[in-house]
Every structure is written in structure tokens, then in C-alpha cells.
């Protein structure tokens, strides 16, 4: 593969994803409304019942809205990853996935390009959300908005790879509802997005264990620390490892000798 070819193709894949996203205004609005409802309604309602102790990276007592903001950025990326996965299943059913897969580039590169494209969209959404949150008095140090960027890239890639992995195993669009019930909601609620680990431990040891092993928790912690200009090395390594595993399985899932199209009709002998 020529380097120049790879760069042009990558730009093309990302540009197409952004075109599609901007053309689908409802998707853009829905992607923003969801976390904003959680912020303005859910978090406001729970403000008085959930007190947050001083825990890193925060240096003082914080409002619940401030705590939940990092989790909601994670939510944006989680839903975007699943949305990309949904659109891949749709593209596959509609056939446009074929045009990507028959390009003269290695399959892993094409999937990685698709993943980077989806991540770019989720980063755009996250910063728009943060801009609105700024006016709601949820303000991180200015440097935090810069250090947040690489964390969003890694978290977005990990959650996008998870979506891609799922899309390689989902045979039909109709089965996607199952993914919502069995992947997105458990991942979101059994994580540190809404409540810190010590708070979960007070209620249930089992939930605490599940939440601490949940890769989404680590992605949220990576984002939370980065937003305050700090680096959480454990969350970074955990998220990176999860990304590598998810991506490897997704590439395997899209392998033509095993891959998604073969599964639709059977398998090679």
C-alpha cells in the first residue's frame, strides 16, 4: 500500500462520514439532546440526593452535574460507536459497505479508517456538548479542553471498535435492539459514568467488581482525568488494551474467509 494512497483514502472515508453526519441533522440534534437531557434533568434532580466526596481529579467538593459531565461525554461516544455499528449493519444490508471492502487497500486499514471517521464525529459531538455545558457553569480548566482531545480519540476508538465488533456478528438490522438492551444499557449503568466506584461499592460488591472491569468505566475515567489536565495511566492502559482486543476481533469478523457476508449464507467449505 502506498502511503499517499492510504492518506487520500483515509481523508475520503472521514470526509464522507462527516458529510453524512452533517446531512442528517436529526442525528446531530439527537446526539446532543440525549446527554443534555441527562445533564439538565437527571443530574439536576439527583443533585440533592447524591453528594460527591472529594475524589481525584477534583480538588474540591463538586456538584453532581460536574461529576456526570465526563460520564455524559463517554455516553456520547458510546452511543456514537453503536450508531456507527448500526450504520455498518445498514450499509451492509444496503450494499454500500461492499464499495468500501472492494477497495484496493488492506481490510484492516479500511476498518481502521471507518473507525477513525466515526471517532471524529463523536469528538465533534463531545466538544459541542462541552460548549453548551460551559454556559451551564460546568467549566474545566482551559488546558483540560486540550488534554481531553487524545483521551477522546482513544475512548472513541475503543467504543467504535466495540461497535464494529458487534456489527460483524449482527446478521440483521432487526437484531440491533438486542444490542441496545444487552450492551449499551448495562455498559452505561454499570460504570462510573453516573456514580463513583466507592459509591457503587456501598450498595453492592458484585456491581462494584463489574463496574471496575467494565472498559466503559475506564474510558470515562480517562476522559474525566484528561478534562482536568491529568493523566490516569491505569485507565489509559486498560482502554488501549480493550481497543486492541476489540479491533483484532472486529478485523477477524470482517475477514472474507470467515467474514460477515459468508455468515449470511453459510460458510466456506
Amino acid at each position: 500500500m502506498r502511503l499517499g494512497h492510504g492518506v487520500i483514502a483515509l481523508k475520503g472515508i472521514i470526509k464522507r462520514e462527516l458529510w453524512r453526519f452533517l446531512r442528517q441533522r436529526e442525528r446531530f440534534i439527537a446526539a446532543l439532546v440525549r446527554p443534555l437531557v441527562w445533564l439538565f434533568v437527571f443530574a439536576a434532580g439527583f443533585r440533592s440526593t447524591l453528594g460527591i466526596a472529594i475524589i481525584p481529579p477534583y480538588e474540591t467538593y463538586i456538584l453532581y452535574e460536574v461529576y456526570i459531565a465526563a460520564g455524559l461525554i463517554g455516553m456520547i461516544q458510546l452511543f456514537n460507536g453503536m450508531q456507527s455499528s448500526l450504520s455498518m449493519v445498514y450499509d451492509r444490508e444496503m450494499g454500500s459497505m461492499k464499495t468500501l471492502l472492494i477497495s484496493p487497500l488492506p481490510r484492516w486499514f479500511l476498518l481502521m479508517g471507518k473507525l477513525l471517521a466515526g471517532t471524529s464525529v463523536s469528538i465533534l459531538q463531545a466538544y459541542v456538548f462541552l460548549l453548551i455545558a460551559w454556559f451551564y457553569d460546568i467549566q474545566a480548566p482551559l488546558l483540560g479542553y486540550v488534554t481531553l482531545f487524545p483521551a477522546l480519540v482513544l475512548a472513541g476508538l475503543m467504543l467504535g471498535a466495540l461497535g464494529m465488533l458487534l456489527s460483524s456478528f449482527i446478521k440483521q438490522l432487526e437484531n440491533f435492539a438486542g444490542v441496545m438492551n444487552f450492551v449499551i444499557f448495562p455498559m452505561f449503568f454499570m460504570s462510573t459514568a453516573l456514580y463513583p466506584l466507592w459509591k457503587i461499592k456501598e450498595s453492592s460488591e458484585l456491581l462494584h467488581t463489574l463496574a471496575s472491569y467494565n472498559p466503559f468505566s475506564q474510558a470515562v475515567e480517562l476522559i474525566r482525568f484528561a478534562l482536568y489536565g491529568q493523566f490516569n495511566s491505569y485507565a489509559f492502559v486498560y482502554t488501549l488494551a480493550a481497543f486492541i482486543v476489540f479491533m483484532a476481533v472486529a478485523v477477524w469478523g470482517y475477514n472474507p474467509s470467515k467474514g460477515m457476508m459468508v455468515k449470511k449464507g453459510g460458510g466456506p467449505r
Partner: protein
Amino acid sequence: MSNPSVDSLAVKTLSYAYGNKAALKDIDFSIGPGECTILLGPNGAGKSTLFSLITHLYNSRDGQILINGWDIKKQSCAALAHLGVVFQQTTLDMDLSVLQNLHYHASLHGMTRRQATARIQEELERQGMLERQNEKVRQLNGGHRRRVEIARALLHKPSLLLLDEPTVGLDVSSRKGIVEHVHALCENDNLSVLWATHLIDEIHPSDQLIVLHQGAIKAQGSVSEVCNGRSADDISQTFQQLTQAKAS
């Protein structure tokens, strides 16, 4: 571009099965530069499976596929660079414009913006679609979408064009237009074509023919070679005879 000394497509002893059900059995054929080969078979004959193998969407352990001399399994990138494909189902992005769809394809083939713009203008002009380049694909009718797909498949100047039942669902004049255009491409541009269909009237007398039935090739050669020696008056009756016989 095509190499005149190498077949644009060579398929050698290719077999494929879904589980225990054989979909293709010992398929052997080749297409030379500038040849238009019609892959004729009823629904379920294995045409789409064969296309999926040639485009590397499926992988077969048995047999070999060479595109312009490149092995699709071992040198898939080089092989796919010589291939243009029009699938049976529209694979354009409905929410994007004609131009955006074509630029996306050009970027996947590593074409620079300037190269892509020049080629897009050229192909759209040839298809009579230049004035519709800024329209959303969703606004185009079936025939126009097909024309855009053919333009897209030719953007990177492939030596082999695959068309999987491209006229399904089109009106008579659109069908005729596409059939004539593709045949002209073979004659004028030395483009090789593999055209899967079950419609007899899409065959030209100069075409090569492969009759596929129940996963096996029942006959191949020029139209007259396939018809000769059979108690049939024309290609339509020959096709019926070949595809009504039980597979051996």
C-alpha cells in the same frame, strides 16, 4: 490499464460451498482484453456467489482467481485496483450528492483531488449526467443511479468491469441504453466485461457466453458455438435446454 498479453480475468477450478451445499463446482473460464462475456444463469445458479469471490468479499480455499494476472487471494490490493464493479443492488450513498459519491470512490482508489475531478467530469459527461452532479442520489431515478454507478466503476480506469444484473428493475429504454453503452466500452476502450444476467435480450452476437446452472458451467464459448450442435433454434431455446436438464 489492461496488459494485452494477460487475461483480464482467469478463474481456475474454483469451487465454493455454503456448509455442505455446493454453490460452485469446478468453475474454469477466462476473459481476454476487450471481451464482453455474458454470465447467463437462472436465479440461484451461483452468479452472485461467483461475483463475491471475484471481488474478494468471499474467499475460497479451492481454485484460483487472477485479475490481470494478480491473484485475488495473495495480491488482493493489486488485483482489486484493476477491477470495477456494479452490484445488483444500488450501493450509492442516498444522502450524498452524485459528486460526493464519486469523490469518495476516487479517494478509495488513491486519486488526488485534481485527478478525481478530471475523471469525474469525463465519466459523467460520457454518461450524460454532468448537469446532475450536484443532485442527491435519492432524487435520481433508477436508470440515472445505474449510470452514476457505471461512471463510478470506471473512474479508476479498471481493465475488468463486473456487472451483476445491472438492469434489474429498469425500464426498457434505460436497459437498452446501458447494454449499448457497455458494449461500446468493450469495443472502443478495450475494456473487459463480465455481465451476469438471466435476460437473453441483453446478449450481443459478438459476446462470449457462459451458461451457469446449479453451480456448474453447462456451456461456454461464442454465441454460435454455444448454440451449434443443439436441437434449438436460438440462444433462448438453448438456454432453456441447458438449464432444464438436471445437474450432473
